[in-house]
């Protein structure tokens, strides 16, 4: 790295992410030296919730974000359920899983085709042999694959029309299950939709059966598969990743966090998550200890920045502090350290062999983050197919939750982008406190009081900057590799 004094540049607006974002880059010659992430929009949803009837969280919370709306509903419902004795019946739990998985899968498709890949169709890459294909398939708003992905996504979201009324922003997810029961024929229609989504993914994205993708065990298998793989968007991505060395780009701390997904999993009478909770730090998989989470407002335009708080005691009072603060985003820390969350965390903790291998080899990078999402794009339809088969029309879908108690409760769920937590406090039958930590809050957190950068900030350090670049492509790839959602980040 060169020794030129760094130049500060403000990159933004970013798009093909959810919401608005700018990044302060200190560029030293041909690379980024330091980065500061600014979530430029404050929304204050936590404050709106205060004073309302607890159940109103089901209306307000999803509207934090239109892309992970169901995740918010799910976390809110879980928090509310924590204030009652209710046990959702099996159908209710499974249906909720299907609804959430539908959203997650739609998000994964949207991210890959609409947000992430179009960058490779940019003229900047015109000299690469894969550029023609990338242009044809991925050009923003025009590529064949973009149109096809939108079709697949729309078809997939018919699951919402059947199970959840509509998407985004359903009220179908309730503490006691779901608000809509369906009959056997509707189950068949769900199966039909999933079959057609699977066919699309197999024909366009992977070029092979989803089962094959799920079973990719290590880099060697991946390599072999590439040699023999038919033309597919996945193959094209692998080509691109290889030439652009995406597996060396955007490594952060290799600390990962997941609260676990799919409670009930395959077995409707078992509420432990199918993909377990856990953290990865210093190469080891450890238990996830929510009590070790705190929020730090040191560099956020918020009050109460003097000390860190556990979320249950957190506040969200905007307070411009120019000069110090540079974002609306809080800095969540677990056991004092920044953590990265998302598909890569889930697959690592779950022990998906290929992702473990990739991370073992090169850490969490642009490549391994996207690969983890691709693995999930193959895994989710398979799970959903099973769940649909486990539904039992005729059995109940909902159990009444009775009156909710006063008290504290937390609802966790894995959203597409990672671990989401809602910390709820009810007093006198009204919401007294509601604090949310969203996945991108973790990933795009600012520095903490100790000056430790957040995961993205860290990942950007050292990113190559080519001459004349204002919003360096490497920065864009790294930013988008986290699949950020700024609506969630600051809610």
């Amino acid at each position: 790295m060169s020794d030129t004094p760094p130049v500060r540049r403000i990159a933004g607006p970013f798009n093909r992410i959810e919401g608005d974002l700018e990044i302060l880059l200190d560029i030293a010659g041909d690379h980024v030296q330091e980065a500061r992430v600014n979530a430029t929009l404050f929304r204050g949803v936590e404050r709106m919730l205060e004073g309302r009837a607890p159940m109103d969280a089901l209306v307000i919370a999803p509207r934090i974000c239109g892309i992970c709306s169901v995740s918010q509903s799910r976390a809110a419902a879980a928090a509310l359920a924590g204030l009652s004795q209710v046990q959702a019946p099996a159908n209710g739990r499974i249906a909720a899983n299907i609804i959430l998985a539908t959203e997650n899968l739609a998000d994964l498709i949207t991210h890959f085709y609409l947000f992430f890949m179009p960058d490779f169709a940019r003229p900047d890459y015109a000299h690469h042999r894969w550029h023609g294909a990338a242009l044809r398939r991925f050009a923003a708003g025009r590529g064949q694959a973009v149109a096809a992905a939108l079709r697949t996504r729309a078809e997939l979201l018919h699951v919402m029309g059947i199970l959840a009324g509509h998407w985004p922003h359903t009220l179908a997810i309730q503490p006691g299950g779901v608000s809509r029961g369906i009959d056997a024929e509707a189950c068949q229609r769900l199966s039909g939709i999933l079959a057609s989504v699977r066919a699309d993914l197999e024909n366009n994205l992977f070029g092979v059966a989803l089962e094959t993708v799920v079973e990719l065990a290590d880099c060697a298998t991946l390599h072999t598969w590439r040699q023999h793989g038919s033309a597919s968007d996945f193959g094209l991505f692998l080509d691109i990743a290889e030439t652009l060395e995406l597996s060396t780009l955007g490594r952060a701390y290799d600390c990962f966090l997941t609260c676990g997904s799919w409670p009930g999993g395959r077995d409707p009478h078992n509420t432990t998550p199918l993909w377990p909770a856990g953290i990865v730090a210093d190469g080891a998989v450890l238990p996830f200890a929510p009590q070790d989470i705190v929020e730090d407002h040191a560099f956020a335009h918020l009050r109460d920045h003097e000390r860190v708080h556990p979320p249950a005691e957190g506040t969200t009072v905007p307070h411009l502090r120019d000069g110090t603060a540079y974002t609306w985003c809080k800095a969540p820390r677990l056991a004092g350290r920044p953590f990265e969350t998302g598909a890569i965390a889930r697959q690592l903790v779950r022990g998906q062999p290929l992702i473990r291998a990739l991370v073992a080899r090169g850490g969490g990078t642009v490549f391994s983050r996207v690969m983890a999402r691709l693995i999930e794009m193959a895994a989710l339809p398979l799970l959903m197919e099973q769940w649909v088969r486990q539904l039992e029309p005729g059995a109940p879908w909902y159990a009444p939750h009775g009156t909710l108690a006063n008290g504290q409760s937390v609802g966790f769920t894995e959203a597409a982008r990672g671990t989401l937590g809602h910390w709820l406090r009810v007093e006198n039958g009204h919401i007294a406190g509601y604090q949310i930590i969203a996945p991108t809050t973790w990933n795009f957190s600012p520095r903490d009081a100790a000056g430790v950068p957040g995961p993205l900030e860290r990942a950007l350090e050292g990113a190559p900057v080519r001459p004349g670049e204002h919003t360096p492509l490497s920065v864009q790839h790294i930013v988008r590799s986290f699949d950020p959602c700024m609506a969630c980040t600051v809610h």
Partner: protein
Amino acid sequence: MTFQILWLQSGGCGGCTMSLLCAESPGLLSTLRGAGISFLWHPSLSEQSGDDVQALLDSVLAGKVALDALCVEGALLRGPEGTGRFHIMGGTGRPMLTWVQALARVARHVVAVGSCAAYGGITAASPNILDACGLHYDGRYPGGALGAEFRDHTGLPVINIAGCPTHPDWVTGTLALLARGQLGATDLDPLGRPRFYADTLVHHGCTRNEFYEYKASARHPSDLGCLMENMGCIGTQAHGDCNTRLWNGGGSCTRGGYACINCTAPEFEEPGHPFETTPKIAGIPVGLPTDMPKAWYVALSSLARAATPERLARNATEDHIVVPPSSRPLRR
């Protein structure tokens, strides 16, 4: 020449765009292409980031690039203290509020996509520390970010595609009509909403209609009965063709088993009672169907209740049909 749209997002959740991407029959890209519409820039669909976007905005403001419609998704944030600093457009250092105000002046039409952009919506929910508002309304009151007097170059007010989220067809339909010059002032209702969907009530086409007729009502989520009496449904008053047009291949709020919370209306975010509960006075729901005198409601509903067939009485509180309609062939 295509009809050029610039789409900006501010104080919202992005859900209106997410919904728009669900457009079908035909899909979004074909629909737009078919209607001769193109995006100058859209946050989810365009390639350009950063400087390129700033350059584009400058050209638009400079009149170098024609802006046929400015679409705004999300409420405008006027706080803190009228500075608009709660949302600075990334990379520009300038509040989105003033960007929008400036761009609205050069746009041929201004479209508020979603209830946030139209009236403030959820983002303006109390205590509204953001001082959020819509483009042309602040809740029920004309005004908002552009001021009550605002009219576009053709004399139209801001077109409020209200809804939270908006239905993809509401957006594509409005844009196509604008692109073909077929949306006039009389095609908007008194709240600036396109009448093609706002002249319909959500109650129209609700599959729970027969339960409604007999006031056979659901008591819990997943019950089949009408959601009006207990579950907070205001579909009889809500403007929107949700149960006619349907969502995501055949859904709607009431089909999904939950209340219509009137999301196309200004201030829907402040019903004054828990959303999914019907407020009553003397056992009579407070919000009565549009145009219905309370006396008639009382008379009709008590009568109806007295006549409720067992089928409806029982099915109303079940999650699947337990008493099917009789299947005698009709008498001739």
